[in-house]
């Protein structure tokens, strides 16, 4: 009886361990670097805790977004990244429009009075208030690309800490070796904040190579972006052979409808 139990005690954890290793290895080989259950080490604990960490990471990211909107939880799809890249800051004056008459539902009326607040964005001076939540989100879920991207944006552009942003990106790339977005962000930081075009070009090249294997839906956009910058940097150092080569690759493999590809093809020698 005892030896049967001993075998079972050895067999079950062994089976769990080998299965977890197999899942982690296969998902890494196939390039699913954002798989929530893929831990850094590929061990059983990482796999079991993977989803929990992802959920906590998402919750912390939402908290950070609320802080960016001055505590407002219901702010639609507007976030640090979308607010600053896709639309301007002209909705500071917007008021919540869900007011209901007091006589109809006094409880709702009281709650609306409590929650009423204009849609605002934190400015550069208050940007440091968001960072603890981004830090917690990145620590809780190292595969949460959105959290890393948002934290990098705030660090580099709102608090003028590009070195910290670069460190975070490098840690993020280490945890998500197949992710193109992070590699592109790193290249941009190197180019815009450090003026290190040599390293930036290498990073864009790495991003392009990763984008060839990436199966994410926005891979074409990222590949196009990487190609554009590679062509642009080649032109900057008067390497016309490389520029022509990148333009040829873009013409043959990419759709000309993409803005980055159009811009690349329009670069004159």
């Amino acid at each position: 009886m005892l030896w049967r139990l001993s075998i079972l005690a050895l067999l079950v954890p062994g089976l769990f361990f080998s299965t977890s290793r197999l899942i982690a290895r296969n998902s890494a080989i196939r390039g699913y670097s954002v798989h929530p259950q893929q831990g850094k080490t590929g061990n059983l604990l990482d796999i079991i805790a993977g989803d929990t960490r992802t959920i906590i990471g998402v919750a912390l990211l939402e908290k950070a977004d609320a802080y960016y909107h001055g505590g407002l939880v219901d702010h639609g799809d507007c976030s640090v990244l979308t607010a600053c890249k896709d639309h301007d800051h002209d909705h500071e004056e917007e008021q919540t429009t869900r007011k209901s008459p007091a006589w109809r539902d006094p409880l709702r009326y009281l709650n609306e009075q409590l929650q009423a607040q204009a849609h605002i964005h934190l400015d550069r001076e208050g940007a440091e208030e968001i960072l603890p939540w981004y830090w917690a989100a990145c620590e809780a879920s190292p595969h949460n690309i959105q959290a890393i991207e948002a934290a990098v944006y705030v660090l580099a552009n709102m608090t003028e800490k590009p070195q910290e942003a670069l460190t975070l990106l490098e840690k993020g790339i280490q945890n998500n070796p197949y992710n193109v977005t992070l590699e592109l962000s790193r290249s941009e930081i190197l180019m815009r904040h450090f003026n290190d075009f040599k390293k930036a070009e290498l990073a864009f090249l790495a991003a392009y190579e990763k984008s060839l294997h990436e199966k994410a839906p926005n891979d074409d956009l990222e590949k196009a972006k990487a190609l554009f910058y590679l062509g642009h940097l080649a032109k900057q150092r008067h390497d016309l052979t490389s520029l022509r080569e990148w333009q040829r690759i873009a013409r043959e493999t990419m759709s000309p409808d993409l803005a980055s590809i159009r811009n690349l093809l329009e670069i004159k020698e």
Partner: protein
Amino acid sequence: MHTLRQISALMRLSLFDLYRRKDLVVVALLTVVLLVPLSFATPFGVKGASRYLNEIALLLVWIFVLAIAMTRTARILPTEIESRTIYPLLSKPASRTVILFGRYAGVLLASLSVLFLFYFLYALINNLKSALFPWEVFAQAFLLHASFIILVTALALLGSLYFNPDANLSVMGILIVSMFLYGQQLPVLASEHALPIRTLIHTFYWFAPHCELFDMRTRLIHHWPAIPWGVCCMIFLYALTYAGLCFGAAAWLFNRKKI
């Protein structure tokens, strides 16, 4: 006058009981242990963030004060009955309603004193750190938090006449947390269901304690402007009415209870 003296004697008993048991010391130490390391944290090497610390501090204040108020109230009557200390009280020339009110007011006063202490420390630390402390919002937050404590203690008192202390704490805990999270979603939930269930959810919406109305943490942390004082008073009156109804029901039950 005689009744007032009886009530004040009973209140003093509850107040001394709280401070004698050192619950407050444990809670205060726990808060310090949790907050001091956090206050030294510099995420990404950036200093100056304080709102997250305020948020965690206020969350702890809410949890600890609620825990103290609920556990105290839920154990007033069952403990007295179990240890038979209720008999000397009942033998006094005081009505059962006066005894119940005195004990309830004592626990309420003890809980409010804890609340006051925590808010005083919060204001002191924040005022030292920043010159721009939103005093009006702070006063409203304190008033609404005190209203919340008045409401939940009355609710727990009523519950203590139905359930044993542990069951009472569990039921009230679930009710309070659920109302905090989903209180305002109930009409939406009701509209998604057919008639008998819709009426049931609507009835629950109108009669359940709306704890979410007392939470002004976001306003305080993010320096939102104060709410109109009329709204603040309406919420305070809501809490008083609800607590009054709960106490009335509890007194009615206690007067009929065979001890």
